[in-house]
């Protein structure tokens, strides 16, 4: 995704001012000159020349690290290799180890996939609901509401995570105090961070809370472009609010939903900070690892950089696959 979005922007900056007289003019100018000058053979090259500076920057900053991670994933690479600078090829051994490990199939992958699924569904649903609500408000209150939810978005993941950890602190946390107040539990007798399900429930709250404002603001922007007449006409025909959402709003906003869903999926699959910083998430409780945490622990805590890279490549491949499926569904429906 980053490549697609960044490429045109990055290439414009260095190239456009330099070549303004020829390429900056209207398309007609270009065609006329090509016909007159007979310089047609240069034109297939020209876009690439113009793109070159941007592509070089992207290649160095994005492509090379990517290639490097793939190369690392084919090696048994530790501190010794880092110090000596030597390679230590093992072929696909790292991948075989990972894929042959029942831990991946019983713990890490279900954690990653189910957690991401829950987060995406909840984030998009909550975000859309909030957007619909904001859309019904007047200009002033919409501004107030939008600002309020943007605060949740602006809070760094680290800070947000600590806040949620404090809220659920088994001994002194808000939730424990409230439950104690109603006589449900004795503080300190229940630790929500040790059980896989309750651990991820808290993580989901954290991630959804942090992620829904982006969806809400994006969907709100989309909602504001829907002509009011459509809704009015439907109302006259006696359509309920539910029916109007599914028959008018949802189809028009389909591209918007596609974008927020794809982005949320990518973000929620590679959640790291929010898990790692939770009690037990930094390695002490192997039941709660996801792919990101597992990769980090293997690479940096144990110095097995090859193994960590292989996990990272695996995560990337899964994400590519999911994005591909999304894109295909999207384009197929547009063709129809």
């Amino acid at each position, binding site marked *: 995704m980053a490549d697609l979005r960044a490429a045109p922007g990055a290439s414009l900056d260095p190239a456009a001012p330099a070549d303004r007289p020829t390429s900056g003019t209207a398309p007609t100018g270009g065609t006329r000159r090509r016909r007159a000058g007979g310089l047609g053979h240069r034109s297939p090259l020209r876009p690439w020349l113009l793109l070159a500076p941007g592509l070089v920057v992207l290649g160095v900053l994005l492509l090379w690290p990517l290639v490097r991670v793939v190369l690392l994933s084919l090696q048994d690479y530790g501190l010794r290799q880092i110090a000596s600078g030597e390679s230590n090829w093992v072929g696909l051994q790292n991948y075989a180890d990972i894929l042959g490990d029942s831990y991946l199939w019983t713990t890490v992958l279900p954690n990653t996939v189910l957690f991401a699924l829950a987060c995406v569904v909840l984030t998009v649903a909550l975000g859309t609901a909030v957007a619909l609500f904001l859309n019904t408000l007047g200009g002033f209150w919409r501004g107030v509401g939008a600002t309020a939810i943007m605060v949740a978005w602006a809070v760094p993941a680290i800070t947000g995570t600590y806040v949620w950890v404090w809220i659920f602190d088994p001994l002194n946390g808000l939730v424990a105090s409230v439950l104690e107040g109603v006589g449900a539990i004795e503080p300190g007798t229940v630790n929500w961070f040790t059980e896989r399900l309750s651990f991820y429930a808290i993580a989901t709250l954290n991630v959804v809370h942090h992620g829904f404002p982006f969806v809400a603001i994006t969907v709100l922007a989309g909602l504001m472009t829907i002509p009011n007449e459509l809704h009015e006409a439907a109302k006259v025909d006696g359509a309920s609010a539910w029916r109007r959402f599914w028959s008018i709003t949802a189809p028009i906003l389909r591209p918007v939903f596609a974008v927020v869903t794809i982005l949320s999926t990518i973000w929620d699959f590679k959640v790291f900070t929010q898990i790692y910083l939770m009690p037990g998430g930094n390695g002490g409780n192997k039941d709660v690892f996801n792919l990101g945490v597992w990769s980090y622990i293997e690479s940096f805590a144990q110095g*097995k950089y090859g193994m960590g890279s292989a996990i990272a490549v695996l995560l990337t491949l899964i994400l590519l696959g999911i994005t591909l499926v999304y894109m295909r569904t999207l384009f197929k429906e547009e063709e129809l």
Partner: protein
Amino acid sequence: MQRRSTVAVTGTLVLALGLAACGSGGGSGSETTGGDEATDFSGETLTVWIMEGTNPDADAFFDEVTAAFEEETGADLQIEFQPWASAHDKFTTAIAGGTTPDVAEVGTTWTGEFADVGALADLSDRIAEAGLEDDLVPGLVESATLDGGVYGMPWYAGVRSVVYRADLFEAAGIEAPTSWDELVAAADALKAANPEIIPFPVAGDSQYGAMPFIWGAGGDLAVQDGDTWTSEVSSPESVEGLEFYTGLATEHGFSTAAATTWKETDLLAAFEQGQVGMMISGSWTPGKIVSDVPDMEGKIGAFPIPGQTEGLSDSFLGGSHLGVFEASEKQDLAWTFVEMMTTGEFAEAWGQQSGYFPGQTSLLEKVIEEDDPMVAPFAQQMVEAGRSVPVTPLYGQIQGKKTLETMLQSILSGSATVQEAADTAAADMDETFGS
């Protein structure tokens, strides 16, 4: 006054070193010869990495060191502070990129790892030349030793014992326990007198809290046989120790479910909030407790971790070495600095300011003689019952994947029995040792 005497001491040391170097007749690896050259390094700069946060007033300390060092050698000193949390990554990238400093503070559990990849210089000849080999704390030398070489100069050390609420003990008429049975009795009495107190929280995310009980019952983490290591955490003795330690929580109810995921810092925070009766805690924490919560002054005490029936249980002896990097071109200058920092007046001052113990035995004995009630129990623990984790780079990997913490948390949360969890941990360790 202070400054002058410091310079005099280090001056003497450097002179002695120079003479020793002459006397050894160039048999050592050092390329510089002659005592006079050893004192003239003007124009050179020595780069040093020091970990952040050990000494609350490190800037002032190193201002003095820099001045003394310049006066002594003519060379400039560049001290760069590194946070502990990112230091390991920083070392790794520096080793990879060839940008290591000349000298660095290296945590004792890392020294073996960095030495193993050839990043650190062997200091054993220089230590012998300086006549220091019998004056260094053995536990710290052990953790710096790899295949007969010594790759880090012992600088300072800390050890964990039990920190407790002396006021509550006194009010309930409880004596400091000297065996495990007495520890249970003390916690019971404390709980009876103060129902709202957590008598002895068992922190699940603290490996060093469990080690004294594994060792105290006669168990071990791993044993070496030739070149290979084998895990011992599932041996009957280790399991017995673990059963006692986790039993404090699961059987006796001296802990809280919250502590299952506590790190040592969480333990300390709960203690500072007045919720805790006793805890396994480091020699550097009493000072911090009193400075964080002045009300605690005079209300806290410490005792060494009691042995199962008598004596003491061993406790992990951690700390820092000063390592000289192999890639440094200023080996002689670097050693001059290392010796200045780790022996004599500066080492003593560092210990006093930071709440750690010096790595030089003669200085440590001086601290013990002072008999400070908040220092003496830790000093006793360190001298009589300080112990190192297995000295192999592989053990760093095991610590990295938190094998012991995983074991503790699964026992405390009830998802595994002690034997099951210990078996899992042992298999996990052996997998790393075997690879």
